[in-house]
């Protein structure tokens, strides 16, 4: 599995992402935002977290219009794997590769803490190694993680089973208080209809080592590597 990690000015979680992917057995290629094409042989494109272009205009808005995004849209359209985490999720929404948008947290506070996520489905390349409805612990760190979309889009996401992760409480229930950023229907992560593109607000790449807060995120990267081996 060859994973290309895209770096924009202001990206800052790319090394954490590389560490998590390497630990799962992936080879890493670094992709620059100005490149018009992806190098040959990239199986997975990863948009890591950070503050691309200083969050100017809207989070992810300027990165979403970078030259490499056309290549990523083509990669996604032909069924390639794409993972966007935090700012990467914002960029995928701004680019129109995923629906909806991520706006300022309802509390107006930057949220930096662990959160609990429920794995909503396991028949995806991102979640195959989790148990159905498993609750995992993951750090989050964002000021704009409040997922919004019109009711019709939210209903479609639910109806087609494209909600991948939801914020939940200790009992695994998606109660409103568990979505501290205010995200609609507790949505933490969504999939494209072919389930090969995932946008996720919290940081699984920062939960891959028992020394630093657990390894609940590692299964996501192991699932990706296994999915590509099986393909």
């Amino acid at each position: 599995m060859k994973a290309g990690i895209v770096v924009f000015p202001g990206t800052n979680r790319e090394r954490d992402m590389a560490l998590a992917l390497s630990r799962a057995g992936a080879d890493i290629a670094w992709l620059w935002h100005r490149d018009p094409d992806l190098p040959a042989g990239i199986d997975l494109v990863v948009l890591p977290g950070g503050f691309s272009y200083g969050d100017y205009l809207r989070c992810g808005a300027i990165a979403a219009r970078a030259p490499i995004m056309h290549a990523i849209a083509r990669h996604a359209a032909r069924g390639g794997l794409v993972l966007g985490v935090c700012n990467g999720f914002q960029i995928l929404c701004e680019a129109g590769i995923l629906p909806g948008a991520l706006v300022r947290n309802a509390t107006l506070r930057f949220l930096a803490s662990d959160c609990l996520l429920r794995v909503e489905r396991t028949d995806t390349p991102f979640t195959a190694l989790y148990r159905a409805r498993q609750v995992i612990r993951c750090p989050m760190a964002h000021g704009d993680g409040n997922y919004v979309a019109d009711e019709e889009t939210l209903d479609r996401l639910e109806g087609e089973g494209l909600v991948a992760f939801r914020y939940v409480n200790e009992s695994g229930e998606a109660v409103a208080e568990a979505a501290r950023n205010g995200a609609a229907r507790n949505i933490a992560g969504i999939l494209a209809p072919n389930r090969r593109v995932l946008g996720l607000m919290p940081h699984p790449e920062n939960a891959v080592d028992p020394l630093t807060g657990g390894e609940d995120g590692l299964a996501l990267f192991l699932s990706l590597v296994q999915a590509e081996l099986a393909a």
Partner: protein
Amino acid sequence: MKARVTVMPKSGVLDPQGKAIGRALSSLGFEGVGEVRAGKVIELELAETDPERAKAAAEEMARRLLANPVIESFRVEIAG
């Protein structure tokens, strides 16, 4: 030619910044303030001299970048 693009959160989209401003106004003792919504204004200096064409160009810029149609609406004014 100057164009002014006003970008506002769409009605129905939660505007936590507007809400916070509203609460701050009320804590300052201002009464009778209803809903507060916060947007942004972007001024563009355009080489185009024809107002119609300048407006059309600014609208295209708003559609493609300055506003996100999922959450925002925009208005373009041309100011000489």
